[in-house]
Structures are given as C-alpha cells and as structure tokens.
C-alpha cells in the first residue's frame, strides 16, 4: 500500500463518509450505524498501517503531503506524522469505534445526526493532530467545535443546552486569540524572510523577539495567546469550569471522545507549538504553569472526592490527570515529557473506559448517583471486574498503564522541581482514595436498593467495547517501551535535548 | 466692494446648523423636510461661493445636480408623509413608534 495519501486517508475517511451518510434517509438507522462503525474501523486500519510503516528513529515528519491551498498567504494543505502524532492518532482511531459500539443502543433518537457529527468530529481531531500547517491546524481545531456543540446539545442530559453553549464560548474565546497569534507569527516570519508561509516547519525558523516585560514582548504575548487556547482545552485550573458541565451533560460517547481525545489536543498543542516556537517564553512561564498544574492536581482530586454523581467524579478526576500531564510537559526533561505523552494515552484509555462503564449503568438505571447503587459486585460480576481494571489503571497500580505514565512524569520532574513533585504525589494518593471509595460504595456496600438486584451484567457488545481498552491498559503497563520508543526521537527534537 | 468669502461660508454654516437642528428637534414631518432642505441649500450656497472663489464652473454645475436631487428627495419625502397621514391621521414623527427605537 503506497503511503502517498495515507494521512489524507486517515483524516478524511470519517468526514467524507459522514457527509455521504448525510444523504441517506432518516429511517436507515441500521445502515448508518454499520457504515459509521466500518468507517471508523477503516480509519483505525489506516492508522495501524501508519504505525507499521513509520520510522521511529526519524524525528521529522513522515508521509508528508503538501498541496497549495491559499497561495497568496503561503497557506497549504500540509499533513505530516511523527511519533507524537502517531501515538495520539492511534488513540483517537481506537476510541472512535468503541464510541460507536457503546452508543449502539443508547442513542436511538436522530441516529443519523449523531453518527455524522461523530465522524466529522473525528476528522477534526485527526486533522488537528496531523496538520503541519498552522492555518490548517486552526481550521481543523475549529471544525471540532460545531459537531461537539451538537453532540452535547442534542443528545445530552437535562442541562445540555447550557453546557453546549458554555463549551463553545469557552473554546472559541481562546481559539480566536490563537488565530490572531497564528497570523502574527506568520507576519513575523514574513518580515524576517520576505515570504508568506503558515507551514509549521517554517514557523520553527521564525525567531519571535522576546522584548521586555509582558506587554512589550511579542514572544510572551504569542505564547500567552496559544497557551490560553490550549489551557482552556486541557483544561488547566482555573479555566476548567466548562469541563464538568460538558462531561456530565454529554452523552456517553461524547464524554469518551471529549475526555479521551479532545482534552489531549490542549496538551498536544502545548507540546507541539508552545514549546518549540516560544522557547524563552516557555522558560519564563514554567513556574506559573507548574503551580497551576499542582493546584489542578490537588483541587481536582479534592473536588472529585466530594462528588455524588459518578460521571462528575470521573470528570473532576480528569482535571487531576491533566494536571499531571501539564506538570510533565513543563518539567521539561525528556523523561517527564515522554511520561506526559504516555499519560495522555493512558488518560484517554482509563477515563474513556470509566465513562463507558458509567454509561453502562446509566443506561440500565437512568441515574448516576453513587447513593443509588451499592453491592453491584454480587449482581454484575463482569461489570465489577471491568470497573476495577479501569479504576486501577486510573489510580496508577503498577502493572497497568497509569503507573508508568505517572512514574515517568514524577521521576522526570523530580531532579529539577522536587517540591512540586512532592505536592503532586499527594494527588496520586488522593486519587487512590476517591476512586477506591467510589468502588467500595458502588460495588461492595450492601445491596440495599431493590432496583439494583435485577441489573443485567455486561452484554457481549459492551464487553467488545471495553476489551480493547483493557488490552492496551495491560500492554502499556507491562511493556511501555513499545510506545515510548515510537515517540522518543520526536520528543527529543521538540524539547531540543 | 465685494462680500468676502468668509461671510458666505459663515452664513452657510449657520444655515446648515439651523437645518440640522430642525431635523433633530422638530416633531412635524413637514418641518423636518424643511430642515433637510436647509441643510442641502447650505451646502449649495457654500459650493457656489467656493466655486466663485476658485473661478470654476464645476461647483456651479454640481449645484444644479444637487437641486434636482433635493427636489426628488422632497417628492419622496412628501409622498411618504401623505401615505403616513392616510394611515395614522398625523404626521407627528413621535407617533412612529410601533418598533422601539
């Protein structure tokens, strides 16, 4: 299979199929379900091909595609893949079929709209991971906004409209400033070289003046504009307030994608753009971001502990986990950055699994309140086992994936920032406390509520959705080297070490 | 003895101000039309005076155009007022308040 159009195939397959599905009649629900699943599986296959063909020792972009699009401004349709994007593309492509399988039964209203929105969303995400043109990146970045708005707003819970609008306005406010920054960056490149370009590789060669202070320093301002857009997406404390709303109101599939993939775009952006484009500003902002990361870790854990709604609890645990990732990125060593990248994948797997499993009981009981459950271990043994695996992965039990990521982050950061690591480590402990307390209350408290006695266990379809996640949790936990080696060269290049 | 240009300009400015005040302050549709005419004619006067000062005919010709346009404008304005009067039995612009300002 030639790789000339491999990346285009990865990016465009879901979107094109989605647009074609738009033309199918509303009643053809079976067709829409199957075609969307097949499209996402096909995308996964393309991603796997990329995995088998990529040369991990080569730090630069591979399978490069470049076509002119808006020649007057030097904007092109440029795609490229390195180890970092490969890992995240694999995660996205893996989660998408799981989303479709998990929502096979739970979404029964307006199925066409749902699968189309999901497929367009996948194109947006994959495009953002693979774009090597700043402008194209921005287009894909914005492209995600509208499908996600609909996914939350149409298929969400009770306060879905509020959550959808809040999600859009938060995201947009940040990303539009990033657009200005992108244009300005290109302008800097233009004034230094005399040619217009939005290509990422060209931007790396533009040296943005550092200047004095904050308001008179172009580099600080550009850094801030990029970082704001990404920090909202991650989300970094105190910009996280949209996240619990969006997660809780979104349908299960939306939460999986949101937590599993969309949040990663924020940290991906910090690593891909902020780090190499604005190195001095990055240095200067490091204390601030480390502080915010640690606050996020502890705050997210404490708030999660206090939640009565399982989905909200998992949502707040995301704030903690993303805090670890930000910590790893800004600690800046190769080990911590690699750990952060791995933790992005881990969080996608474990939180995706948790949302999936919370969705399972929600479908059966139409409640997510912890107090409405108890003693499920006796009724749903398979489900209990699955939930336990996801929980242990999330809290970082050795042998599962979460441990490797957190360990790398903390060991990588320790030599430079021991105090930060010390505080962050309490987050690990707190994480174990609230997650295990959740497990105890849901699965081992007495089976007091009558409605819970007859709950059916996982269906084969739910097992099918969960199994790949568990498989990768164990794989990464046992042999993380498979994935770490993929990204090492690329990470080295970005952090300049 | 000729009247200096500054007299014309000042006069035109005063006329313009009176016209603008009429448009903004008066309530009757007819008075507003008069105010608009005053503003246009203030401009005409200034144009004619400046044209004479520069010794050109450009402005004088322009003034003819403006007069024609002003006549058309009044025709449209009066027609509108008649239509409004038929509907509302009044040409008080304060009563045009179906939509909030």
């Amino acid at each position, binding site marked *: 299979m030639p790789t000339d159009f491999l990346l285009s195939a990865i990016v465009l397959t879901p979107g094109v199929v989605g647009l074609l599905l738009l033309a199918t009649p509303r009643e053809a629900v079976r067709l829409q379900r199957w075609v969307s699943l097949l499209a996402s599986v096909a995308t996964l296959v393309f991603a796997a091909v990329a995995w088998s063909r990529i040369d991990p020792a080569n730090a630069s972009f591979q399978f490069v595609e470049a076509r002119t699009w808006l020649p007057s401004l030097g904007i092109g349709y440029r795609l490229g893949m390195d180890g970092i994007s490969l890992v995240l593309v694999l995660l996205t492509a893996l989660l998408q079929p799981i989303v479709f399988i998990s929502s096979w039964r739970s979404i029964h209203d307006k199925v066409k709209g749902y699968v189309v929105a999901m497929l367009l969303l996948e194109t947006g995400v994959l495009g953002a991971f693979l774009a090597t043109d700043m402008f194209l990146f921005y287009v894909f970045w914005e492209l995600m906004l509208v499908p996600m708005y609909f996914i939350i707003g149409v298929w969400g819970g009770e306060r879905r409209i509020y959550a959808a609008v809040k999600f859009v306005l938060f995201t947009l406010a940040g990303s539009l400033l990033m657009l200005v920054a992108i244009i300005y960056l290109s302008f800097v490149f233009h004034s230094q070289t005399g040619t217009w370009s939005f290509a990422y590789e060209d931007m790396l060669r533009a040296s943005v003046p550092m200047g004095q202070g904050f308001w008179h320093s172009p580099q600080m301002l550009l850094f801030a504009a990029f970082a704001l857009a990404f920090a909202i997406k991650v989300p970094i404390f105190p910009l996280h307030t949209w996240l619990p709303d969006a997660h809780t109101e979104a349908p299960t599939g939306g939460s999986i994608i949101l937590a599993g993939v969309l949040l990663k775009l924020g940290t991906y952006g910090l690593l891909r753009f902020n780090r190499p484009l604005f190195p001095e500003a990055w240095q200067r902002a490091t204390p601030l971001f480390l502080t915010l990361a640690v606050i996020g870790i502890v705050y997210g854990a404490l708030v999660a502990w206090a939640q009565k709604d399982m989905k909200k609890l998992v949502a707040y645990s995301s704030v903690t986990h993303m805090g670890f990732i930000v910590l790893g990125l800004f600690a800046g060593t190769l080990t911590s950055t690699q750990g952060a990248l791995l933790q992005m994948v881990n969080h996608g797997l474990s939180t995706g699994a948790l949302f999936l499993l919370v969705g399972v009981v929600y479908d059966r009981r139409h409640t997510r309140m912890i107090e409405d459950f108890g003693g499920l271990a006796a009724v749903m043994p398979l489900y209990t086992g699955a939930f336990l695996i996801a929980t242990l992965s999330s809290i970082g039990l050795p042998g599962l994936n979460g441990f490797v990521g957190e360990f790398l982050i903390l060991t990588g950061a320790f030599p430079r920032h021991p105090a930060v690591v010390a505080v962050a480590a309490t987050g690990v402990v707190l994480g174990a406390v609230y997650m295990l307390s959740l497990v105890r209350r849901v699965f081992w408290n007495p089976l007091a509520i009558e409605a819970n006695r007859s709950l059916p266990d996982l269906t084969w379809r739910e097992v099918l959705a969960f199994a790949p996640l568990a498989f990768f949790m164990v794989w990464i936990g046992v042999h993380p080297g498979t994935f770490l080696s993929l990204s090492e060269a690329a990470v080295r290049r970005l952090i300049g070490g | 003895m000729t009247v200096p240009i500054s007299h014309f300009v000042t006069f035109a400015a005063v006329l313009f101000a009176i016209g603008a005040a009429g448009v903004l302050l008066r309530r009757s549709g007819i008075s507003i039309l008069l105010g608009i005419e005053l503003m246009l004619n203030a401009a005409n006067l200034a*144009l004619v005076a400046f044209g004479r000062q520069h010794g050109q005919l450009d402005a004088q010709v322009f003034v003819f155009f403006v007069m024609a346009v002003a006549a058309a404008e009044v025709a449209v304005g009066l027609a509108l007022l008649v239509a409004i009067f038929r509907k509302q039995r009044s040409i008080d612009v304060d009563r045009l308040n179906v939509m909030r300002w």
Partner: protein
Amino acid sequence: MRADLIALLPELMLATLAMAVLLAGLASGKARHGLLGAGAVLALAATGVTLWLAAGATDPGAHFFSGMFVLDHFAIFFKALFLLTAALVVLLSHDYLKRNDYRPGEYLALVMFATVGMMTMASGVNLAVIYVGLELMALSTYILAGYFRREVKSHEAAAKYFVLGAMSSGILLYGLSLIYGATGTLDLATLARVLASAKPGPSALVGVALLACGFLFKVAAVPFHVWTPDVYEGAPTPITAFMSVGPKAAAFAMFLRVFIGGLAPLAASWIWLVGVAAALTMIWGNVAALTQDNVKRMLAYSSIAHAGYALVGLVAGGPAGVNSVLFYMLVYTVTNIGAFGFVILLESRGYAGETVADYAGLARRHPAAAFGMLLFMLSLGGIPPTAGFMGKLYLFAAAVNAGYVWLVVVAVLMSAVSLYYYLRIVLQMYLREGDGAEPATLVAAPWTERVIWACGVAVLVIGLLPAPFLAAARAMAGAVGLL
C-alpha cells in the same frame, strides 16, 4: 464620446430596462408576477453581459466623461457584485410579493434603479458623480423600504430611513463642499495631488470629518447606526436583505474610493477616527444583537457588526486591505442574502414568524432549509469551513500586517460574542424540540429556496476554495487610484 458611451452602457441599459419594467408593470397589473420578475432578472443578466463586453472594449486605466467616470477593475468587481445582489433579491422577492399581494412593477423597477445608482457610485471618480449615484440609490431604497403600504411598520421604517438618510446626505454634501472649498476640485486624483502638496487647513479637516460621518452613516457604523434595526425590521424582508448587502457594499466602494483614493494624504487625520468607529461598531453591534428576539433585528445588529469588520480592512489600507474588503463584501453578500432568504421562507403569516422562538424544532420538519441556515449562521460567525471564516481571515491578516493588532483582537473577541447569538438560532432549530415546540411551517416558495441553495453552495465553495475568488478581488483592488 463613443468610448464614453460604451463605458456607461451598462448603466444606460439597466436604466432603460428598468423603465421598461416599470411601464410593463403599469400595463399588466398585479397578475404578471412571473413575467415581470423574469424580465427583471433577464435585464440584470443582460446588463451583466453588457458590463463584460464594455469592460473588454475599454481600457481599464482610461477616464471617461472628462475624467469623471472610470471602468476599472475595482468598478467592475463591484458592479458585478451589485448585479448579482439585485438578481438574488429579485428572485427572493418573487414569492414574497405574490404572497403579500403587492404590485411587482414599481418594486422591481426601483430595485433596478437603485442598482444603477450603486453602479454609478462604484465608477465615479468625481465627488459630484458619486453623490448623484448615491442619491439615486438612496431615494429608490427609501421608497422600497416603505413599499408595503398597508403595513404601519413599513411606513415607519421608510420614514425613519428617509429622515436620517436625507440628513446624512446633507452632512455628506456639506463635507464635500468644504473639501471643494479647501482644494478647488471635485476630482479624486486631483484632490489627492492637491492635498499631498499643501498642508490642509482646518476647513478641509472639518470637511473630511463630515464626509466620514456621512459615509459611516451609510455603512451603518456606530455611532450612526440607530436607524438600522428599525428600518431592517420594518422594511419588506427582501428589501432588508437588499439594504444589508447592496447599499452597504456600494457605500464601502465609495468609502474606499474617496478615502483610500482621494483623501489618502490626510490618512493620519482620519484613520484613527475610522479605526475607533470600527472598534465601537464591532463591539456595539455584537453586544446589542445578543438581546434581540426578533430575527430581523438581530440580523440588523449583525450587519452593523459586519460593517465594523469590513472597516478593519479599510483601516488596514493598502492593496491587501482593499482586497480583503472586496472579498469580504462578496462573502457577506452571499451569506446574508441566504440568511434573509430563510427568514422569508418562515414569514408565513405577514410579519409573524420572525422571533427566535419561531425557529424551534425546524430542523426536524425542514432539514434541508435548516442546514442551509446553519451554514449561514456559521459563516456569519466566522467558523471554518465557511466563506465567512475566509473573509475574516483576510481582513485580519491585512490588519495585522498593517500593525493594527489591537483592532484585530477586538474583532476576534467580538466574533466569539457573535457566535452566541448566531448559535441561538441554530440551537432553536436543532436543539429545542419535543418540549412543546410547534415548529412553524415554511411556506412554499420555490424561488426563495433556490436562492438559499445557491447561496449555501457559494458559502461552502468560497470557504473551501477561496483562491480564485481572492484572485478576482486582488486583480480588482489595485485600481483604487493611488495604491
């Protein structure tokens, strides 16, 4: 003389055909909607062909009628845009006039006369010509705004538009006379030469300020925007669509021609004025739109805001700035006409069907039309991959390039705000249903639907492949006089 007439032929032709439509309308009465509408569209198309031929037969750099009239690329671009706008509006009006039982003859003729005025404005390089074109456009539009003579709102809209419009014309004319007094010329190129050679006195500066006020009124910029919401709400909806794009684009053509062409030497003294007006326009237009429940009023404030974005391009100046304004006008025209087309579809019961709540649950009953409206709202909000996004990109790129980063920051923040109210409509159409919402029934209006389809396709095509359209705009932009 022959060359003069060839250059003027499109205007002559359209004016003649407009009179023919007027007479035919008088002769045929109400019954012949289809015939007259088809005649008007054909007339506009024929004018388009004539424009093409005339452009081929004349030298784009040449001046006609003793240097008062040009047919450069800039003028051709705008004339083509005006003809397109007028044709779309005529098509939109067809079903609407029929449904509301108004005579088509005068209406169509007035749209065509207004178009002649706009075309003259785009070609004038002499302040007198520009003024006459402006008044022809304005007078026709006043009457059109009040065309629904059985509706109080329509009268009110026309009266308000007339009073404030005539007053702004007076201010503009007075500004012209002061500039003439200071420089002794009405010709834009001479004006620029004179202003560049001598330091202008206070009267010229007052003249420029008055002129700017008049122009800002015509493009509906803050603080001269107060007429817009009422006029847009009260006027017949196709005319609202027309006013929001045609006269606005014509005003921008004149604004660019006069300020970037003739008054360029005084840029230092007007650019801050226009810049501040642009910022205020974007802020106030978007903020005021947030609270509107009437969709036509909301689109009125949105059109105010969009004038603000376009002013950013004017402030940026230079070929890139002018180019971006031209492109933006094209983008805005197709988007806004499409959006108003949707409002027309919904106006099934006279003036009803205009509040945001009327849009509830429309997506289920009318998926195709709702999808079109979704595209238009996203385009107005500037979300890729729609035309509106590309339009904004070029405006912002030009402004950043010219060093007006603060203006761009205001613009993008306000774009974020604007998405809130554009999404309100989307939200009503797609998200609200089931909870007791009874979706309004769209009226059967085949031509309106076709216009919506055409605009929707244009929004996507320009959004995905803007390069050829930009190239067209760029070829035109070089011609604004002193660039």
